């Protein structure tokens, strides 16, 4: 029977539990994305300054976050800092903190690159026209940078969403953990439970990430001709 076991997905109680797990996933992703975007823009604008006092700490921050896999950062914060510094954060808080820091670093680099890559004559022409420094940023540089920034930062949002399943490894009861629990309960009566439950979660992630990725591509295509 090719569809044997699929009835695990037809049980409304099971689906309700998966939805509860999904809410946790979405909550962590949404909060992290907001923090990452706000803090990333702030640090990205600061990182435009070429002084060594800014560049050295900025590069150390960016590269050290990038070179260590996100899972290892989660372990460091969840298992490591709990013991060393006495922080007793639960998995969800740890996830939000780690994804926010990582997202901030990536966002800062996107902001720095998209403002930094604007031609110098934009600033010079604006200055020649008598605009003040804040006016140059507000009316000339930022509107142009946003066009380059937005598609890439939406892409970053999908990357953050695709990293949330790692939370299952630091005891967060998110959608994947709920899936595991459903499979454990049903495994004796339903040998294909794992296939259907993980298959559904696979589809859910696709249905969340694909439209967002599509939006990013649409914006990129629309704004690429300047």
């Amino acid at each position, binding site marked *: 029977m090719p569809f044997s076991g699929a009835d695990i997905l037809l049980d409304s109680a099971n689906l309700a539990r998966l939805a509860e797990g999904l809410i946790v996933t979405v909550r962590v992703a949404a909060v992290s994305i907001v923090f990452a975007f706000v803090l990333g823009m702030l640090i990205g604008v600061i990182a435009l300054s070429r002084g060594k006092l800014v560049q050295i700490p900025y590069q150390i921050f960016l590269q050290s976050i990038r070179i*260590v896999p996100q899972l290892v950062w989660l372990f460091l914060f969840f298992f490591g800092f709990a013991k060393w510094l006495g922080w007793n954060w639960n998995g969800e808080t740890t996830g939000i903190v780690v994804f926010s820091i990582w997202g901030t670093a990536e966002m800062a680099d996107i902001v720095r690159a998209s403002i930094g890559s604007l031609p110098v004559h934009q600033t010079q022409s604006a200055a020649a026209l008598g605009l003040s420094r804040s006016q140059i940023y507000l009316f000339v540089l930022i509107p142009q940078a946003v066009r380059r920034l937005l598609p890439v930062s939406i892409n970053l949002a999908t990357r953050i969403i695709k990293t949330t399943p790692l939370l299952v490894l630091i005891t967060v009861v998110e959608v994947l953990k709920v899936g595991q629990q459903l499979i454990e309960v049903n495994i004796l009566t339903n040998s294909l439970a794992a296939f259907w439950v993980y298959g559904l979660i696979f589809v859910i*992630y696709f249905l969340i990430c694909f439209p967002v990725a599509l939006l990013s591509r649409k914006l990129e295509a629309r704004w690429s001709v300047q």
Partner: protein
Amino acid sequence: MELDYQNMIGSIPLFAQAAWTTLWIAVSGVLLASAIGAGCALSLYLEWPFLTRPIKAYIEVSRNTPLLVQLFLLHFGLKVEALPCAVMALAFLGGGYMAEAFRAGLEAVERSQVESALSLGLSRYETVRYVVLPQALISAVPAIGANVIFLFKETSVVSVVAVTDIVAVAKDLISLYYETAEALIMLVIAYLVLLTPICLAVWWLERRVKHAVFGR
């Protein structure tokens, strides 16, 4: 914080052995992903009939789902053994990313290059082989390099399907001896040792090919 250095030094052989597993999975995953990506990008570029839609669907599915969920589905859902499962999932995920990198490289080759080659009397095959591919590969290098580093870091999750990589060793050491700090520091060192040479190599290669891009 007092560190148990004896224990850390003692765990080096364990980490070294697991590092080989991590490296093996990453290298074979990246190679397979590159082959899949190149194949997909080329068949899209040559507009092979019937393949375009399935390949586009594959690229979207592989890029828009998390590796961890792909691993779970393959290992627990489709009962693929741990080590092949890790390599297959990485190749599945990476294939989509690599296809995008190669595709962007192919698209960066100007239309006039193809037209000129054809008007000079080169065959379709020769045009792709000697004119398009060399330029496309070079402009794809930065994206391919970024993907290699990304895929390498993604291998950190394979311990969920009972592969003894460096994360699995760190987790075992924590649960055996409760020496959390020591195991985590060794884990970070292991990743730095593995990833720093790769990052440097990618950075060097990017600089090396920067001047080879045609017309720049």
